[in-house]
C-alpha cells in the first residue's frame, strides 16, 4: 500500500484549514449573511442519485456532502473523507471518513451510508438516469449491476468499518478522486429514504449531511436553505441563508438582479461588453468546461459527402470562429479548434495546424479542398444543419450559413425542438448537428472518451488509433500525452466542426466573496462564501 495524497492542496489541507481563511485580511463581515442566486428552471429533484441537472447539482452540493469537495480552483479537498489510500495496483481506494460527520438529524455519517447510496445509484430498481456514472467511475461490477446481471450487493464498494470505505475498480482510473466530488456519489440516509419513499426530498422530510438544510421548495418559484448546525464544520460556515429563485427569462432575471433581488445572474448573450463597462466589479467571465461544435454524421446513414475527410476539413476551416465569439457571443468565450476545453486541469493544448492560420488562409484552403473533392459552382455541396430551438443557436447557425456560402456550400437550416433534436442525433438521423459537451469531471478524458468507437459519438466516428490512445491513457503515468495526441488525430480526421469554448458570463454582486472564479467546473459551495461590509 502506498499512501497517496490527492494533490498538494490536500497535503496542505490535512494540516491546515481546508480552505483559505475567511474572511480575508481587512474584510469585515456584513450583518446580512444571505445569498440569493438565479435558477433558469424549476429544480427537478434534490435526490443525489436521481438528479440529472446542473442546477439540481448546485442544490445538492449544499444539502449533502460527498467524500471529497473541490477548492476554489477545482482540485479535490477533504469532504466527509479526510484522505484516502491507493493500492499498488491502483485498483483499490480506501477512504478514511471523519468521525465528526453527522446527518442533519444528528445521526453519524458512516461508510455504510456511502455503500447504500452507491448501490442505490447502480441498482436497476432505482432506475437512476445517472447509473452510468458508476460505470464511468469503473467501480467493480457496476456494469453488471446496472444491467441487472448481478445484485447491488456485488458492487465493488464495502464498509470496512464505520469510518473506512473501500472501493475496488476494474481498471486504474487516474481521475477517480475527482469523480467522487460529483453529486451522484453523495450519501443519502437509508432510513429516511426507505420510510418516506419518493417524497423523501421534500422540505421537512429531507435529511442531509451538507452544510445546509432544506427550508422550503415551491416548484418553479424558489428553493431556500438554512445553515445546518449539525454539520461537522458548521463553525466555519459564515453564510446563514441561501435561496435560489427561478426566473425563466434571462432578461427579466437581469432586471431583478439590478433591482437587488438576486446576488448572481447570467448575462444574456451580447450584453457583456456593455455591463462590464458599466459595472466592472460585477460583470465576470469565467472559463466554463463546455465546448460547442457542429457534429458531422460520418456513419452509414450520413451523407456521402461527409465521408470525405477533405469536405469535413473544408467545413471546419470555413467556420469563422472569431466572428462567432467577438460579434455574436461577446462574453469572453474562446474560438475552438479542438474538442477538449482549454481550461481543463492539466490539459496541454496540442499544436493544431489550422488554429495558427489566418481566416483568409483557411478559406483558401477550404475552397481548394472542396474543389479537390469534386465540388464547385457547377456541383455545389448541399448540407442541412439541425439545431434545437434557441436564440443563440439560431444566430450562430445563420452566421454559419453565410460562412459556408463563401466557399460555395449551400447550408439549409433545420430548427427542431430539443427532444426531437436529441432523438434524431441518437438515431444518426442528421447531416450536421449542433452539439455541446460539458465535462463531468475536471479531466480531458471526459471530452475525448466521447469520440471513442464505443463512446456516445452520435456521428459514429471511429479510428482504432484514437481508441488505442484512449485505452493507453487509463493506465498512463501522464495521460495528458495521450490526450494531446488524440486531439491531433481528431484535427486530422475532423469528425466535428469545433466552434467555441464556453465561458460563464455572470453578474456577481461585489460584496459576495468566496465564489470560485477559477474552477472550470463552476461548482460552488455556499459554505465557502460570505458577504462583506462595503
Amino acid at each position, binding site marked *: 500500500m502506498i499512501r497517496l495524497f490527492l494533490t498538494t492542496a490536500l497535503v496542505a489541507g490535512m494540516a491546515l484549514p481546508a480552505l483559505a481563511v475567511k474572511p480575508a485580511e481587512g474584510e469585515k463581515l456584513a450583518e446580512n449573511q444571505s445569498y440569493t442566486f438565479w435558477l433558469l428552471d424549476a429544480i427537478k*429533484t434534490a435526490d443525489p442519485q*436521481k438528479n440529472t441537472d446542473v442546477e439540481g447539482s448546485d442544490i445538492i452540493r449544499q444539502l449533502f456532502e460527498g467524500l471529497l469537495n473541490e477548492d476554489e480552483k477545482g482540485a479535490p479537498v477533504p469532504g466527509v473523507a479526510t484522505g484516502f489510500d491507493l493500492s499498488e495496483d491502483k485498483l483499490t481506494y480506501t477512504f478514511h471518513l471523519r468521525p465528526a460527520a453527522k446527518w442533519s438529524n444528528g445521526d453519524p455519517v458512516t461508510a455504510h451510508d456511502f455503500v447504500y447510496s452507491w448501490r442505490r445509484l447502480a441498482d*436497476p*430498481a432505482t432506475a437512476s*438516469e445517472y447509473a452510468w456514472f458508476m460505470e464511468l467511475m469503473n467501480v467493480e461490477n457496476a456494469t453488471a449491476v446496472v444491467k441487472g446481471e448481478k445484485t447491488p450487493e456485488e458492487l465493488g464498494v464495502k464498509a470496512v468499518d464505520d469510518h473506512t470505505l473501500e472501493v475496488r475498480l476494474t481498471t486504474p482510473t487516474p481521475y477517480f478522486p475527482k469523480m467522487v466530488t460529483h453529486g451522484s456519489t453523495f450519501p443519502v440516509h437509508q432510513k429516511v429514504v426507505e420510510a418516506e419513499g419518493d*417524497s423523501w426530498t421534500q422540505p421537512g422530510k429531507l435529511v442531509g449531511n451538507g452544510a445546509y438544510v432544506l427550508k422550503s421548495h415551491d416548484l418553479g418559484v424558489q428553493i431556500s436553505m438554512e445553515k445546518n448546525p449539525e454539520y461537522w464544520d458548521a463553525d466555519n460556515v459564515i453564510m446563514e441563508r441561501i435561496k435560489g429563485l*427561478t*426566473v425563466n427569462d434571462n432578461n427579466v432575471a437581469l432586471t431583478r438582479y439590478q433591482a437587488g433581488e438576486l446576488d448572481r445572474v447570467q448575462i444574456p448573450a451580447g450584453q457583456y461588453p456593455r455591463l462590464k463597462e458599466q459595472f466592472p466589479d460585477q460583470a465576470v467571465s469565467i472559463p466554463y468546461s463546455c465546448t460547442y461544435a457542429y457534429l458531422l454524421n460520418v456513419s452509414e446513414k450520413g451523407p456521402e459527402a461527409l465521408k470525405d475527410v477533405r469536405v469535413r476539413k473544408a467545413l471546419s476551416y470555413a467556420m469563422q470562429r472569431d466572428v462567432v465569439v467577438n460579434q455574436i457571443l461577446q462574453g469572453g468565450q474562446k474560438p475552438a479548434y479542438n474538442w477538449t476545453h482549454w481550461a481543463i486541469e492539466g490539459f496541454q493544448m496540442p499544436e493544431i495546424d489550422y488554429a495558427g492560420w489566418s481566416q483568409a488562409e483557411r478559406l483558401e484552403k477550404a475552397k481548394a479542398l472542396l474543389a479537390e473533392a469534386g465540388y464547385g459552382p457547377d456541383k455545389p455541396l448541399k448540407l442541412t444543419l439541425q439545431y434545437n430551438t434557441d436564440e443563440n443557436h439560431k444566430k450562430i447557425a445563420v452566421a454559419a450559413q453565410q460562412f459556408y456560402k463563401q466557399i460555395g456550400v449551400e447550408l439549409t437550416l433545420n430548427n427542431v425542438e430539443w427532444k426531437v433534436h*436529441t432523438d*434524431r442525433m441518437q438515431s444518426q438521423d442528421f447531416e450536421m448537428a449542433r452539439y455541446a459537451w460539458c465535462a463531468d469531471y475536471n479531466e480531458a478524458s471526459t471530452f475525448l472518451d466521447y469520440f471513442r468507437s464505443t463512446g456516445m459519438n452520435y456521428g459514429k466516428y471511429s479510428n482504432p488509433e484514437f481508441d488505442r490512445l484512449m485505452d493507453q491513457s487509463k493506465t498512463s503515468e501522464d495521460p495528458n500525452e495521450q490526450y494531446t495526441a488524440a486531439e491531433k488525430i481528431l484535427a486530422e480526421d475532423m469528425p466535428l466542426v469545433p466552434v467555441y469554448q464556453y465561458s460563464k458570463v455572470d453578474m456577481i454582486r461585489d460584496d459576495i466573496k468566496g465564489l470560485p472564479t477559477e474552477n472550470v467546473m463552476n461548482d460552488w459551495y455556499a459554505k465557502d462564501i460570505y458577504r462583506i461590509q462595503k
Partner: protein
Amino acid sequence: MFGFILRRLAVAIPTLLLLIVVSFLLMHAAPGGPFTQERALPPQVLANLNAKYGLDEPLWRQIAGYVWGIVAHFDFGPSFVYPDRSVNQIIAAGFPVTLTYGGIAFVVAVAVGVALGVAAAIRQNSWMDYLAVGISIGAQVLPNFVMAPLLVLVFTLWLGWLPGGGWGGPIYWIMPVVALSTSFMASIARITRSSMLEVLGSNHIRTARAKGLPERAVILRHALKPAMLPVISYLGPAFVTIITGSVVIDMYFSTGGIGRSFVDSALNRDYAVMMGITILVGALTILFSLVVDVLYAWIDPKIRY
C-alpha cells in the same frame, strides 16, 4: 332545465375519455420520450426506467391503467421528470396559484371591460368613446409577453414598488393580474360596446325611453342584460383560458402556476403531468360551456332547453 344539465353531464364522460385517448396517442407519437437526454442512456437503464413507469407495456394497457388510476383512486400518477412529486401534488401546488391570479384577472377584466364598453356605447363618437376605444385597442395590441418585462422594468427596477416575481401575498399578485387581464379586458370592452350599440337602437329601448324612464334606468334595467349575451358567450371559454394558466405570466413572474408546467411537460415529454393538466383543462372547459348555456337561458327568455 334539470334534464338538460343531466344530459350534458352524461355526454361529458365520453368526451373526456376521448380526450384522454387522443392526447395519450398524440403524446406518444411525438419523437423522443421523457428520458431522451443529450447523453443517451444505456439501453439497460432506459429499460429499467420504462419498466418503473410502465412505459414498456402496450399502449392500450397504459391507457387503461391510467384511466383506472384516476377513476379508482383519483391518482394521476407520478411525474416522469420530477421524481419526488406526483402529478396530483404538482397540480395541487400550481393550480391554486393560477386560480388566484387568473380569478382576479377575470374579475378585473370583466368589470373594467364592461364599464369601458358601456361608457363608449352610451356616448358614442364623443371623447369618452374615443378614449375607451383607444384604451382597449392599446391593451389589445400590447401582448403580455411585451407587457410583462416592461412592468418588471418600471415597477421593480425604476420605481422599486413591487417585487419582480415570485409568489406570496397580494403584492405579488398585482403585476400578473395587470399583465393577464388587459387583453381580455380589451376584447370584452369591444364586444360590450358593439352589442350595447345594437341594443340601444332596438325597439324596446325606444319604448322604455318613450315611457319617460330616466336614462340610467333604461341602461341598467333594459339595455345591459340583453347586451351581455355576446359577452357571456365570450366569457365562458375566456374564463377557462384565464384560470388554467398562462405560460407567459408564469415565465416572466415566476409565479409557479400550472401554465408553465403544462408547456414544460410537453417539451419534457412528461406524459403524466401533461395528461393531468389536459384533463383538468378539458373538464373545466366542458363545465363552463355548460354554465354559459345555463346563463343564456336565464338572461334570454327566448332560449329554452
